[in-house]
């Protein structure tokens, strides 16, 4: 039935709590029931925190009963990617090397969500240490795309995406280093934002590639995405890369949602539609361009000449940073230790707990940073990054947002790209350029191809998320793409 709690948007649920129509505890129970009945088939969660969720929900209900002001996410369930620290529950990064580790503190985004009244229901499956584009590198289990269980949900935040697409939570958080919220959002028919580098504090996010990592949300509509983005953004003294000057962005995104887009300039990267894209993706994007034109947007052609080097540059920079960040996993202070005859052997055997893709990236990163290769690889990649930023600067002289597909294909089959790492890396071809330039980018559903969702990516200038929400919202109002759901979404859940 359409009124079932698990099918409701975050803003609708918050409204019901505020009006006293439904308690936060009822909403939490419905989410937990839905997880219970569906997740065996989907595999989105690595840990469900039923007790913690009900306690947080009860606290929201008590606050309401006491007449206290309710936060913007009061009583709204949210799932957290397993590389985010939530005090008192496990954070494994889907890796054996952190098996059994319990986070001793809350990430800043978790603190902010709690203060907003959100209810954390559990930790979601992911590619190990966020390294992958299909969620298949998880050391624990596969995530199945709720739209078609034989297909990948995308990655690396595949569990976060699948949990929202399957109706197990209205919201989730992921992390995006090279496309890890946008690509799974495209594959699962969701809205997701990769904020500007520095917008959201990464305190309590287990690091992968520090010059690229950002935390971003998944939602089923643009309004929900805007609300949760406002909650998690803002300056944090505990993250030295937190560059926002303001403590809170409350209202700055949501006030853009009703605006029209007449006269806004949308830059289309024609080359992104020329090669390597599935015809169904190209068709959906062409129709989206027509929609934006009919809304009064001015469509202009722009080029990103250096973008063709983005995959190479990314797969040098990210592994280099990961090889450094993951040096801390040596079995001494946290995680299992494989005691051996010598210290070096203990390190080596403990670190052999890393899975295949993580080992491959540590090796690649160590190699490109090693003496004799640094200039040829790492320095060259960082210079390519400068050129990609310049490409965007030139494009933004002619337009307000840059439009590309989010991914070149719809969700591919589980196992389809696991044999050749290069083939998997190319799944990120459109999401990498904004990441390397530190720019905000949003993915919104823009149609179906072969019955599966296609994602549209919009990229804006640094700290101009407001324009992304403005365009995304106008597009959503003019279309019904965001109303398409995975077949399991509405059926048979907890009422």
């Amino acid at each position: 039935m359409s009124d079932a709690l698990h099918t409701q948007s975050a803003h609708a649920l918050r409204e019901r709590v505020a009006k006293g129509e439904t308690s936060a505890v009822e909403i939490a129970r419905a989410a937990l029931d839905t997880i219970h009945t569906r997740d065996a088939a989907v595999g989105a969660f690595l840990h469900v925190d039923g007790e913690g969720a009900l306690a947080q929900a009860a606290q929201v209900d008590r606050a309401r009963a006491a007449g206290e002001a309710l936060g913007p996410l009061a009583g709204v369930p949210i799932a957290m990617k397993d590389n985010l620290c939530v005090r008192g529950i496990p954070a494994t990064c889907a890796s054996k090397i952190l098996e059994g580790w319990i986070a001793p503190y809350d990430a800043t985004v978790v603190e902010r969500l709690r203060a907003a009244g959100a209810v954390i229901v559990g930790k979601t499956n992911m590619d190990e240490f966020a390294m992958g584009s299909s969620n298949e590198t998880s050391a624990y289990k596969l995530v199945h795309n709720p739209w078609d269980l034989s297909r990948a949900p995308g990655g690396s935040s595949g569990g976060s995406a699948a949990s929202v697409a399957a109706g197990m939570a209205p919201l989730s958080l992921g992390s995006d280093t090279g496309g890890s919220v946008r690509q799974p959002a495209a594959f699962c028919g969701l809205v997701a934002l990769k904020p500007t580098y520095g917008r959201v504090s990464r305190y309590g996010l287990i690091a992968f590639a520090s010059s690229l990592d950002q935390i971003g949300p998944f939602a089923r509509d643009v309004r929900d995405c805007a609300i949760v983005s406002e909650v998690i953004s803002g300056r944090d003294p505990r993250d030295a890369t937190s560059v926002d000057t303001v403590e809170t962005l409350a209202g700055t995104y949501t006030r853009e949602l009703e605006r029209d887009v007449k006269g806004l300039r949308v830059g289309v990267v024609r080359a992104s539609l020329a090669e390597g894209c599935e015809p169904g993706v190209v068709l959906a994007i062409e129709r989206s361009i027509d929609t934006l034109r009919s809304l009064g947007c001015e469509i202009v052609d722009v080029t990103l000449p250096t973008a063709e080097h983005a995959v190479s540059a990314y797969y040098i920079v990210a592994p280099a940073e990961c090889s450094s960040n993951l040096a801390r996993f040596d079995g001494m202070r946290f995680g299992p230790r494989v005691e051996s005859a010598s210290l070096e052997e203990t390190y080596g055997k403990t670190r052999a707990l890393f899975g295949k893709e993580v080992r491959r990236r540590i090796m690649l990163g160590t190699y490109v940073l090693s003496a004799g290769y640094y200039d040829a690889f790492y320095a060259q990649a960082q210079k390519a990054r400068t050129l990609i930023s310049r490409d965007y600067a030139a494009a933004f002289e002619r337009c307000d947002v840059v439009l590309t597909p989010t991914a070149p294909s719809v969700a591919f089959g589980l196992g389809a790209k696991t044999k050749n790492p290069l083939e998997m890396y190319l799944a990120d071809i459109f999401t990498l350029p904004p990441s390397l330039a530190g720019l905000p980018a949003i993915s919104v559903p823009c149609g179906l191809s072969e019955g599966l969702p296609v994602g549209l990516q919009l990229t804006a200038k640094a700290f101009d998320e407001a324009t992304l929400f403005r365009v995304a919202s106008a597009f959503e109002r003019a279309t019904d793409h965001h109303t398409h759901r995975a077949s399991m979404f509405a059926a048979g859940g907890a009422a």
Partner: protein
Amino acid sequence: MSERISLDEVRKVAKLARLSLSEEELERMRGDLDGILDWMTALSKLDTNGVEPTFHAVEMAAALRDDVVVDGLRRSEALRAAARSDQGGFAVPKVKEGE
């Protein structure tokens, strides 16, 4: 086609990264890295003369927090995650070689 990376180099990099890999894994890793590095040679053709590298995409000054005392992680909590602890510290294998 010439090798981009030799088995000896792979062995050396694995040692630097403190990863124990079996001979079979070293060989497979060599093949994987060879393919990736070969494909990355296209990047070397990009003209970057006079281009400054980007280490952080968004310009920022060094951030300092307010100079006030705040609670840190308690020792007992920090130690709880350790494989072994002893007398309020992390217990680690002997680092210095010899007796």
